[in-house]
């Protein structure tokens, strides 16, 4: 072979190799572009290059005042399926495994896997489930299930789960379960907070997402920026007090056969909520039963302490008497002769037992909870304008502004209301014909415990963000009554607690308080069977450090607040003084608690 031929031969071989190389590249390009996996690649590229690939920051954590975690972000996973990778066997196995592990209906899962998703141009689906309440939710599995499914995917001997994929999704988790559910609210599967602290501080807790381009394309990869995380919140709540109150209230509801109950414990000096318990509990981890099944269904009341209106009954007399003392229209020792009935606006008002109590001091009126006496004070001494001006100053019919979502304002009819009558003045004086929320009542009565100064109740003690800490200051809502009037009333209610309502006494501690037994309004007037038993009290009277409201709905064993709610107040305070290290009254205040050896 001549040199020339040899060279030509070599050139041909070289060209041939290059041609093959180019052809191979072209075949691969055609295969990727038009082969069976083409739609999957196309979808992935679309997602990878999507402009709106959002990096969601971690939702802020929530602690109680001692640092116990109330809300964390637990790793959870959506169950997704890449349709193109499914095989007949894997459709069967995926449905079977998920059905057994998650206790879901097999047929429902199988139907989802068999549907014509490619016809609908969907190549990746998120499997869904129907909850007991009938809601349609994506299936979410926890780390344990995810580990098991991943082990199946990695094991060739395990069931064929080809096409199954677990996509991480941070999920809100509440380690203490239902203990503080009504306070916390909940976070839905889209990461949006509803009700409670989660709802009120949703924007702060969520942080700010950042859009990144081509987050999964290696050539465009770069270190992701830290997204501005949501703030961490420290609540005023004390989880130990919350647990103690829950246990006592739960026992009381069981013993009395009541339907529900609520307790609020607040520091009247600064408005910090130490405990906020509502039973039945809301478990924020499983909030679905609290969602209405359809739009026509009435929404259940989440956190009835801020959203549950009720006629307060005799606990409201505290405000009427405070107004009268402040307006200087009565003195604690003034005598009122109780005839057992008083007519106001054509309506006859009688005492709770229909009895005639004869001459009574103002302290006696409070001790025996005399409707006639209080109606007389409102109608004949205070008169309508002054009475309602005081109620407005106490915040009745207005939001307290507490930092939980879903607060309602309660309702009050004043003389400006077209349907208001004189009879309203008489009944309002002892807490009938007026609706309030437990938090409103605690806030208003807290003013009596705090020398007449009413402070805004709040649940967040510290906000900790990336830039630093923020300590919300105490907000004074006003001073509805003078310190002198508040002190007089506290003394009157301390004395009355020694008498009729001695179920609420705690040995060694001077406490003030008032019972309440309220009728429940219905479409025919008032329910003849059921009542709301309540008690509101504070102490120690020399330096009040707590206000406690107990409300028990529809007790079966007794209708009276003195029998049902007052002992609950006592049981709570007996433990509260230990937890707050409050020494008995015969010892100087401010000492440090210690255990007897």
């Amino acid at each position, binding site marked *: 072979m001549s040199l*020339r031929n040899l*060279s*030509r031969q070599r*050139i041909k071989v070289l060209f041939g190799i290059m041609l093959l190389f180019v052809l191979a590249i072209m075949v691969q390009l055609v295969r990727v572009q038009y082969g069976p996996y083409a739609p999957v690649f196309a979808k992935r590229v679309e997602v990878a290059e999507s402009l709106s690939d959002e990096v969601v*920051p*971690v939702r*802020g*954590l929530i*602690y109680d*005042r*001692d*640092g*116990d*975690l109330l809300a*964390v*972000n*637990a*790793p959870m996973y959506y169950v997704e399926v890449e349709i193109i990778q499914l095989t007949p066997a894997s459709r069967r196995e995926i449905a079977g495994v998920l059905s057994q592990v998650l206790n879901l209906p097999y047929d429902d899962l199988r139907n989802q896997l068999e549907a014509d998703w490619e016809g609908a141009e969907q190549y990746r689906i998120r499997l869904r489930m129907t909850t007991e309440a009938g809601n349609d939710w994506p299936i979410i599995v926890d*780390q344990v299930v995810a580990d098991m499914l991943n082990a199946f995917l990695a094991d060739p001997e395990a069931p064929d789960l080809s096409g199954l994929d677990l996509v991480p999704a941070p999920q809100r*988790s509440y*380690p*203490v379960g239902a*203990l503080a559910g009504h306070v916390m609210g909940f976070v839905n599967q889209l990461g949006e907070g509803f009700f409670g602290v989660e709802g009120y501080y949703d924007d702060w807790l969520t*942080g*700010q997402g950042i859009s990144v381009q081509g987050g999964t394309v*290696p*050539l*465009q*990869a*770069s*270190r992701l*920026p*830290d997204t*501005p*995380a*949501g*703030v*961490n919140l*420290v609540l005023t709540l004390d*989880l*130990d007090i919350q*647990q103690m109150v829950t246990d006592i209230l739960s026992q009381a509801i069981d013993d009395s056969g009541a339907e529900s109950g609520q307790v609020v414990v607040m520091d009247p000096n600064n408005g910090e909520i130490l405990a906020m318990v509502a039973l039945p509990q809301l478990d924020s981890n499983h909030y679905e039963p609290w969602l209405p099944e359809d739009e026509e269904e009435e929404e259940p009341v989440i956190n009835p302490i801020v959203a549950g209106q009720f006629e307060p009954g005799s606990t409201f007399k505290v405000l009427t008497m405070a107004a009268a003392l402040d307006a200087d229209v009565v003195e604690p020792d003034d005598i009122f002769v109780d005839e057992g009935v008083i007519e106001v606006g054509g309506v006859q008002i009688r005492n709770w037992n229909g009895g005639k109590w004869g001459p009574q001091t103002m302290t006696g009126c409070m001790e025996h909870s005399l409707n006639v006496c209080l109606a007389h004070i409102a109608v004949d001494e205070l008169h309508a304008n002054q009475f309602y001006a005081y109620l407005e100053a106490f915040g009745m019919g207005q939001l307290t502004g507490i930092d939980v979502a879903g607060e309602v304002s309660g309702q009050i009819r004043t003389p400006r209301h077209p349907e208001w009558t004189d009879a309203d003045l008489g009944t309002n004086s002892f807490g009938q014909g007026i609706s309030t929320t437990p938090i409103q009542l605690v806030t208003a009565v807290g003013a009596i415990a705090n020398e007449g100064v009413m402070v805004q109740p709040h649940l967040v003690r*510290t906000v*900790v963000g*990336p830039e*630093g*800490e923020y300590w919300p200051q105490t907000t004074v809502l006003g001073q509805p009554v003078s310190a002198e009037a508040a002190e007089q009333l506290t003394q009157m209610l301390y004395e009355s607690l020694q008498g009729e309502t001695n179920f609420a006494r*705690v040995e*060694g501690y001077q406490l003030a308080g008032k019972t309440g037994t309220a009728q429940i309004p219905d479409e025919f007037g008032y329910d003849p069977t059921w009542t709301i038993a309540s008690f509101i009290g504070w102490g120690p009277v020399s330096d009040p450090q707590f206000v406690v409201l107990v409300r028990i709905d529809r007790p079966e064993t007794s209708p009276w607040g003195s029998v049902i709610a007052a002992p609950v107040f006592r049981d709570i305070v007996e*433990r509260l*003084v*230990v937890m707050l290290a409050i*020494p*008995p009254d015969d010892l100087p205040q401010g*000492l*440090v*608690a*210690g*255990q*007897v050896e």
Partner: protein
Amino acid sequence: MKRRKKQAYKKGEQRLPTRVSDRVLLPVVAFLLISGFYLAVHSRHARVGREVLLLEEEKAELVREQAELTSTLAELTSPAHLLEQAEALGFRPASYHDMDFLEIDGYIPPAPFVPERPPGGLEHGDGALAPAFTETLGERLFSWLGWGR
């Protein structure tokens, strides 16, 4: 003289395909060299990018594991759980009858709890990399010529 001509012809005969191959192959080889270089740089870039993505995934996994541990720890230290444990060990909640109070001079109550700050949300810079690693030739030229930028 004749012999020289013949030799020259013979050499010329060999040079013809050489010239052809020079004209065709040299640009091809140059193209392949540049392409190869480009591919090498690009594939290295892709490999590093892939490594970055894997590290990001690893970081996300660690964050998830930490969240799982935090959640478990919070469950184990919840009041209900601790109360149960304490009762199992024979303890009971203290009553106010059990308490004695002592006056301690100079007692300072514990500082209120403050949690750690959440991540800052600042974009990472290029760390300690010198400009030579990141600046383009254009930027360098502009800088050298003192044209600002």
